[in-house]
């Protein structure tokens, strides 16, 4: 063949231009994802109706049977747990959406374009975190209607919501990785059930861990969801939080350090 042909020099836009693109491309993808979310009634139901049902169900169905030592009774104990559980469950949508985009070739198209490589993942995480925050605010409002109150002032209340959201973002990074690595909507959903469900329910989210059998306590006491929810509970209701707060921050940092690179790698190699 024509051995003469040689590569042409490519002019690269400056680093500054590319950094600007990374931001605008992320915003474009975020906007796209939020538009899709608003268009699909099922997504809205998944992110709003389902968490509200959980609040009401635990408050009125299981709540009567669960004895807790919290200040304001079960509803005060419950709400930080529900916020954590909601944030974690919201990431099902992250994994499913990425798997769908992968299967349909949307990600292939985006990867073949001169857009910022980071934007698809970043835009997905930003949109989903925004969505998650909206859901958290809605369920807290519903919580207020059924008797929940913050007992520790405005600052810690905001910190609780922030911690719940960052926790959700961390779980979203894991979900993004599973979505891209597995790449099939149904399998991703099934796999999500296997790890997200036990992780949230085998924690301090809904019941005092002391009510669980000993072998289960060993797990529940030492897993990140419990640390995060205990810290959120401390922020919302008052009480000691230092140990659970730093442990949860270390766990969250660990999740970001491990799963962001894994998700990026899965995106690069996606096929």
């Amino acid at each position, binding site marked *: 063949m024509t051995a003469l*042909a040689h*590569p042409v020099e490519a002019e690269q836009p400056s680093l500054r231009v590319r950094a600007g693109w990374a931001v605008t491309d992320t915003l474009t993808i975020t906007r796209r994802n939020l538009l899709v979310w608003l268009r699909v009634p099922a997504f809205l139901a998944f992110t709003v109706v389902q968490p509200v049902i959980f609040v009401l169900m635990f408050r009125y169905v299981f709540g009567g049977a669960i004895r807790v030592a919290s200040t304001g009774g079960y509803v005060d104990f419950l709400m930080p747990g529900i916020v954590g559980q909601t944030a974690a469950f919201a990431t099902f949508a992250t994994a499913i959406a990425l798997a769908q985009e992968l299967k349909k*070739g949307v990600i292939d198209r985006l990867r073949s*374009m*001169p857009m910022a490589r980071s934007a698809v993942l970043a835009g997905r995480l930003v949109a989903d975190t925004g969505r998650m925050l909206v859901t958290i605010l809605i369920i807290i409002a519903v919580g207020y209607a059924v008797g929940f109150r913050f007992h520790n002032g405005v600052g810690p209340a905001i910190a609780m919501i922030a911690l719940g959201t960052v926790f959700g973002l961390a779980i979203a990074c894991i979900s993004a990785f599973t979505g891209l690595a597995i790449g099939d909507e149904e399998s991703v959903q099934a796999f999500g059930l296997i790890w997200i469900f036990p992780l949230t329910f085998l924690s301090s989210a809904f019941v005092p861990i002391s009510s669980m059998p000993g072998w289960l306590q060993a797990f529940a006491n030492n897993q990140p969801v419990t640390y995060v929810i205990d810290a959120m509970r401390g922020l919302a209701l008052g009480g000691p939080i230092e140990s659970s707060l730093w442990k949860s921050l270390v766990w969250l940092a660990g999740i970001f350090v491990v799963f962001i690179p894994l998700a990026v790698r899965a995106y690069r190699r996606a096929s």
Partner: protein
Amino acid sequence: MSDVGQPSILVEGLTKSFGQVHALRGIDLSVPRGTVLGVLGPNGAGKTTAVRILTTLLLPDGGRALVEGYDVVRQAAAVRRTIGLAGQSAAIQEELTGRENLHIIGRLYHLSWQQARSRAVELLEQFGLSDAADRAAKNYSGGMQRRLDLAASLVGRPRVLFLDEPTIGLDPRSRLGMWDIIRSLVADGTTILLTTQYLEEADELADEIVVIDHGLVIAAGTAEELKGRAGGDVVEFTVPDRSRVGEAAAAVAGLGEPHADPETGMVSIGVGSRGSDALIDAVRALDAAGVATRGLALRRPSLDDVFLTLTGHAAEEEEQSAGRRRGRGRRRDSADTSAGDRVKAAS
């Protein structure tokens, strides 16, 4: 871009394996600017792997590939600024409207809000989607979705367009529509690499065709050149009275070796380059034998014949699930209806 003489797409010794599967075993391609290369091959031949490497989605194991002079591995970003990709499925966001889909793609090509908007309007117009511009793409027909997908691949005004089986699953009318669009893109100077399993698609659109099978280029040339390699002209006819097929075949045995199918009554004889003379001889022989025939015709070999000759199996063999007869059998099924076309093609 510099050298005018440099091909738009240049591939040398490209290899790629997935574990034990050798998807590409060293292929070479060269596509001049503004032409269409048809890449033909059955499912799993390596077509999509080649496209994925050329569009920077996959790294090759060996060899090299240049698109508009840019190396797909070392200058992937520059390649991405040059190309458009439309795949086998419509890679569009179905919940969003056609206009929104194109606007978002425009923004990702770093057009301004206004530029992206007018580019979207322009493409919707060009692809006959203006009336559907503000409807969610999930309500589009299959053909419309594919057109929107192709429009999306053109937002960045690519000089090189990769179309990976662009008409697979489309009804015949939508397919013809896509062909018209592809022709108009070529007329505007775009270089196109088109993969397809449909032989007539390559025949219609491609300036050059390469046939890939099991990760190797097994033939290359124009459609006419490839047809020439399938052994020349064929005289074909059907015997309505199935009991006399053997008799008819014997009558024309002097022309070449007849292939007779007692089931369909179809007889075909490869006659090399003797063309019309062979046809006249066949008429005389059949007349003398007193066998009634239908659709007696001389035809140039089709790309189906080429494919069969080159690969030893029919192009769509791998998709045989529908239970339809493929390859030679399929050609025979359509003999009566298309005999007229063949005479025309032969002249």
